[in-house]
C-alpha cells in the first residue's frame, strides 16, 4: 500500500462530498432520535445503496453510521436522553454540565471527542489492520466474560453515594436482562407470557423509559431544566463558549486518544458494541483519574471518555467484517450485504483484490469525520438553547415523541407500553436514588454476559475454572482486580 494509493483514495473520497454531507445530516437526525438505529435506517435505504456504485454506497453508509454515533450524545447532554445505547454513559457527566449552564461546552467536548476519537482510531486501523484483525480471534468466550465484567464494575463505581442501592439497581437490571429465551435450548424465562419478550428486553424502550420518560416526569417539578445561574449562562451563550469547549478538548487531547483506543479494541470484537465500550472507557477514565470523586458532577473527562470510545468503536466494528468476513455488529452486517451484492468477497483477499474498496471504507470514514466537525461544531451554540425551553412544553413533547420513537426499532405497539413501564420504574428509581444507569448497565450487558458465560461453561462442562484457563484471560482478570482494588487503595491513602 503506497502513499500515492492512499492520497489518491483520500482525494476520491473528498470528491464524494455530495454523498457524505446528506448522509451526515441524516445520521445526525437519526442519532438524536432515540429508537432510530443506523442499521434500521440503512435497511430502509438498502434499495438506494444497492442501486448506486459501491464506492458511493459505502461512503453514504459509513458517513451515516459515524454521524449517528456522534449525534446520540446530543440529547444525552441536553435533556439526559441518550439517542443510543452508546451515549448512555454520556448522561453521567454531560447532563450535570448542562445543569450547570455549560451545555455548549459539553456539546463541543462531545463533538471533538467523537470526531477526533473516531479519526485517530480510523487512521490507526488503516495502519494496523493486519494485527487488529487478529484480536477478535484471540478473544474467546472466557476473555469476553472478563470484558463484560469490566463494564459491569461500573455499577460498583457509580455506587459511591449509596453502595447498597446501586448494587440493587444493577442486579435488578441484570435480572431484567436475563428475560427471554435462553441461548442453548430457546426456552422462555420470565416473559410474563408476552411473545414480544422472547428475544429479551428490547434496549430502545428500556432506554427511553429509564432516561427520557422518567426524566420528563421529574423535570416538571422545575420551570426549566437548568437553575437560575445556568439559565443566565445559557442566555449569554456566545461563540467564546464554543472556543472554551475547544480549548478544553485540546487540553485533554491525551484523554481523547487513549479512551478512543478502548473503543477501537472493544469494537474489533464481534458482538461487543458501543455501549460496552463507552461504559468501560468511562470506568477506566474514572479509575485513572486523580479526582475520581468529581465524576458524575459534570466534568469534561466524563464526557470525553464515553464519546471518544463510542466513536472509536465505529472503525473497530468494520475490522472483522472486512478482514475476516465476520460482521462486528448489525450495521456492519448490512454493509457486508451491500459489498457482497456488488461482488466483493469478504476476508483477507479483499485487501489484495479490491484494496480501493477495503481501505476506501476506512478512508471514507476518516473523510466523513473531517466533514462532520465543520458541519456540527457551529451548531453547538444553537443546540444548547434547548435548555431554555420551559418544561411545560418540553415534558409533553419528550414523553409523547419518545413513546412513539419506542415503536421505531421493532415496530411493536407492545414496546410503547414497555417504555412507559420502564418510565415509571425509572421515575421511582430516580426519586429514591436507585441509580437508573445501574439498571440500564444490567439490561445492556446482562444478556451478553450470560451468553459468553454459558458458552464458556458448556465448553468446560460446567467447570468454573475454565474462566481462569487462558493467559490473555488471566491478564484481563488481573486488570479487573486492579481496577477494583486501586480506587479503594487511593481512597484509603487520601483519608490517611
Amino acid at each position, binding site marked *: 500500500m503506497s502513499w500515492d494509493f492512499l492520497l489518491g483514495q483520500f482525494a476520491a473520497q473528498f470528491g464524494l462530498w455530495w454523498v457524505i454531507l446528506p448522509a451526515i445530516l441524516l445520521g445526525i437526525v437519526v442519532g438524536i432520535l432515540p429508537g432510530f438505529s443506523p442499521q434500521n435506517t440503512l435497511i*430502509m435505504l438498502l434499495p438506494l445503496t444497492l442501486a448506486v456504485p459501491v464506492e458511493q454506497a459505502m461512503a453514504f453508509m459509513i458517513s451515516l453510521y459515524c454521524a449517528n454515533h456522534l449525534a446520540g450524545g446530543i440529547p444525552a447532554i441536553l435533556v439526559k436522553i441518550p439517542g443510543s445505547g452508546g451515549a448512555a454513559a454520556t448522561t453521567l457527566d454531560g447532563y450535570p454540565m448542562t445543569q450547570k449552564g455549560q451545555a455548549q461546552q459539553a456539546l463541543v467536548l462531545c463533538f471533538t471527542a467523537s470526531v477526533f476519537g473516531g479519526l485517530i482510531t480510523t487512521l490507526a486501523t488503516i495502519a494496523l489492520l493486519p494485527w487488529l484483525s487478529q484480536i477478535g480471534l484471540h478473544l474467546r468466550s472466557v476473555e469476553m466474560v472478563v470484558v463484560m465484567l469490566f463494564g459491569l464494575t461500573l455499577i460498583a463505581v457509580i455506587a459511591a453515594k449509596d453502595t*447498597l*442501592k446501586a*448494587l*440493587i*439497581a444493577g*442486579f*435488578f437490571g*441484570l*435480572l*431484567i436482562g*436475563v428475560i427471554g429465551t*435462553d*441461548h*442453548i*435450548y430457546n*426456552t*422462555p*424465562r*420470565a*416473559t*410474563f407470557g408476552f411473545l414480544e419478550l422472547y428475544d429479551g428486553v428490547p434496549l430502545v424502550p428500556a432506554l427511553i423509559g429509564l432516561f427520557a420518560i422518567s426524566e*420528563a*416526569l421529574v423535570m*416538571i*417539578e422545575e420551570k426549566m431544566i437548568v437553575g437560575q445561574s445556568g439559565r443566565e449562562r445559557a442566555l449569554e451563550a456566545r461563540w467564546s463558549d464554543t472556543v472554551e469547549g475547544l480549548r478544553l478538548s485540546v487540553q485533554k487531547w491525551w484523554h481523547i486518544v487513549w479512551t478512543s483506543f478502548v473503543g477501537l479494541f472493544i469494537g474489533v470484537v464481534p458482538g461487543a458494541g458501543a455501549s460496552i465500550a463507552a461504559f468501560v472507557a468511562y470506568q477506566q477514565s474514572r479509575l485513572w483519574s486523580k479526582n475520581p470523586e468529581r465524576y458524575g458532577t459534570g466534568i469534561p473527562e466524563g464526557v470525553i471518555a464515553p464519546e471518544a470510545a463510542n466513536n472509536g468503536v465505529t472503525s473497530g466494528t468494520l475490522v472483522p467484517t472486512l478482514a475476516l468476513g465476520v460482521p462486528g455488529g448489525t450495521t456492519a452486517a448490512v454493509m457486508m450485504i451491500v459489498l457482497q451484492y456488488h461482488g466483493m468477497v469478504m476476508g483477507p483477499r479483499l485487501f489484495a483484490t479490491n484494496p480501493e474498496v477495503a481501505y476506501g471504507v476506512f478512508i471514507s470514514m476518516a473523510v466523513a469525520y473531517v466533514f462532520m466537525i465543520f458541519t456540527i461544531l457551529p451548531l453547538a451554540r444553537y443546540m444548547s438553547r434547548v435548555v431554555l425551553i420551559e*418544561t*411545560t*412544553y418540553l*415534558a*409533553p*413533547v419528550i*414523553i*409523547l*415523541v419518545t*413513546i*412513539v420513537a419506542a*415503536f*421505531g426499532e421493532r*415496530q411493536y*405497539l407492545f414496546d*410503547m*407500553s414497555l417504555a*412507559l413501564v420502564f418510565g*415509571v*420504574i425509572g421515575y*421511582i*428509581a430516580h*426519586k*429514591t436514588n*436507585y441509580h437508573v444507569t445501574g439498571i440500564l448497565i444490567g439490561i445492556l450487558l*446482562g444478556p451478553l*454476559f*450470560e451468553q459468553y*458465560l*454459558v458458552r464458556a*461453561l*458448556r465448553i468446560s462442562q*460446567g467447570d468454573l475454572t475454565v474462566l481462569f484457563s487462558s493467559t490473555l484471560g488471566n491478564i484481563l482478570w488481573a486488570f479487573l482486580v486492579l481496577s477494583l482494588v486501586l480506587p479503594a487503595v487511593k481512597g484509603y491513602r487520601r483519608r490517611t
Partner: protein
Amino acid sequence: MKRSRGADLVIPALALGFAIYFFVSIADLAWEAKANGVVIGGVLVLLIAIQAARIALELGRGKSDLSLAELWEPRDVLGKRAGMVAITVLFIATLHWTGLTLGLLFAMAAALWVMGARGKVLVLLPLVVAGAAYLLFVVLLKTDIPHGPFERLFS
C-alpha cells in the same frame, strides 16, 4: 425528624417480586438456562434482605417511618405527573382507532393543557409535533404504526 423510608422499599419490593417470578419460571429448565439467573437472582435477594434489615433497624430505633411521601413530593405537581401518565396510557390504548397523527395531536394538546399551557401554543405545538410524526413515520419511513382516519384520508 423521622426519615421517610417507605419509598426506599418500592424498588426492592418490585425487584423481589420479579426475582420470585423469575425463579418460578425457570424451576424446570436445564442448568444452562438457569445458572446465570439463579446467581444474579440469589445475589439480588441477598441485597434486598440487607436493605430491608437496614430499614427495619431504623424503624425499630424510631429514626424513620414507612411513609411514601418521597414519591409524591412536591405535591403541587402530582396532578400534572399523574395526568401525563394517564394521557400516555390513553394514547397508547386508543392508537389503533385514532391512528398516529390524530392520536398524537389530541394527546399533545391534552398533555400541554394538563401542564398549564394556554393560548395558541395549545393548537400550534400539537399540530407541528403530529405533522412531523406523520411525515417521519408514515410518509418517509413507512412504518407499521397504526393508521387512523387521517392516514387513510391521505394514503
